[in-house]
């Protein structure tokens, strides 16, 4: 995994996406990263698609059983989570 510390340099921005075709609404993400995801009608969506670095969102991406959730560093395009 990319060191979260490295990406969390001042001003870094992360992109958060949910592949809704994979998501099955378990809501693990919403509980893991409080306030970051909303699960409605059995699908999750990010509350904000661009965020300041937040470790809990990486945890959410690592915990999604369907690997539906991806976090990328906006500047470099590097996938921060989930670990491949």
């Amino acid at each position: 995994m990319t060191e979260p510390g490295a990406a969390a340099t001042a001003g870094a921005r992360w992109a958060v996406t949910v592949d809704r075709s994979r998501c099955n609404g378990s809501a693990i993400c919403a509980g893991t990263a409080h306030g970051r995801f909303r699960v409605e009608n059995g699908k999750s969506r990010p509350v904000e698609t661009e965020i300041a670095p937040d470790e809990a969102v990486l945890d959410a991406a690592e915990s999604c059983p369907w690997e539906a959730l991806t976090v990328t560093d906006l500047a470099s395009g590097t996938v921060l989570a989930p670990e491949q």
Partner: protein
Amino acid sequence: MTTAEHPAPSYPFGPSEGLDLHPRYAELRREDPVSRVTMPYGGEAWLVTRYDDIKVVLADSRFSRAATVGQDVPRMRPPIESENILSMDPPDHSRLRKLVSKAFTVRRIEELRPRVQIMVDELVDDLLDAGQPADLAKTVAWPLPVRVISELLGVPKEDRDNFRTWTGLALATGNETTPEQIEEALNQLLGYMGGLIVQRREKPTDDLLSGLIQARDDGDKLSEQELIVLAVTLLAAGHETTANQIGSHVYQLLTREGYWQRLVDDPELVPGAVEELLRHTPLSVGADNARVALEDVEVGGRLIRKGEAVVVMPLLGNRDASVFERPDELDLDREKNPHMAFGHGVHHCLGAPLARVELQLALGTLARRLPNLRLAEAPADVPWRRDKIVRGPSALLVTW
């Protein structure tokens, strides 16, 4: 809103008979969907019976599992909750969950499908060799999940009988088992796992346990106690639930006219049938796994006060007519099936992808190889487990 009774009615409402669901649940869902009950241990709790309300309790971070640890909270069984993945809140919970989630993603588990198929075929061979009538619970339903989780985790074959006995006792409801016996069985499980971890540390193998040891020793991601408890949880959760569900699912199919034949005629029906069986089939003897409100929260029009406990059972959401048409009917063709048999929120079952593969392969293989499968005794004579938190047949005599 009905006036509160004092003391609240005692729970469970009656004994669990076979796979029956007490009629009181449906009444409560209509009349008093967030109601007070007196649990066998720890006093009064809120019982939620509606799908949407259960989801709120399971997903809202104002409801805490961690607040139950070490506390005399309302519960089904004597032991006081100790710290484990299912009794932690984020971010502690996330730290542990992340360590195991990679091994249980849908993608990784699909890679195990061929290996699980081999195991299922071996066990069906054993069933055929046993001669008729044979006990399907003993020869297929139990050994399959035990073998699968043991292999994944890295638990040696020769230890499987021991840990099955201990888990059985550790998960007793306490009607026929003393709190001391439950405690002792739990300690035996922890002691056994502690010993196995020492062995693996000296001679690492290519399995989940060695992976977790590495996460502890090289990454300092979890404590020794957390490591031991996590491994025991995976072992216990990985087989008790699935083993009972396999037996119960076969019973469900064989006791309804034409259901088995449908799986025989149409193998493609299996995945959907498994989802419907998961939705419909009771798993535990009652609502438990209390969540404690960290502040006042309104659920279904009721105010749950800070410090009060809510007990949950996913099955109750799965039988809610506002989400599932004819909820009490087992409908293998059900199209929309957003069941919550694996829970909801951060504690959503880690093993769900694995359980699905095991159930699909077990039922699919049995239907293919034993198209004439039927019960060897009257449905009413099938014996059910007693004094156990997880429901299921204690034996399932079949012929083919």
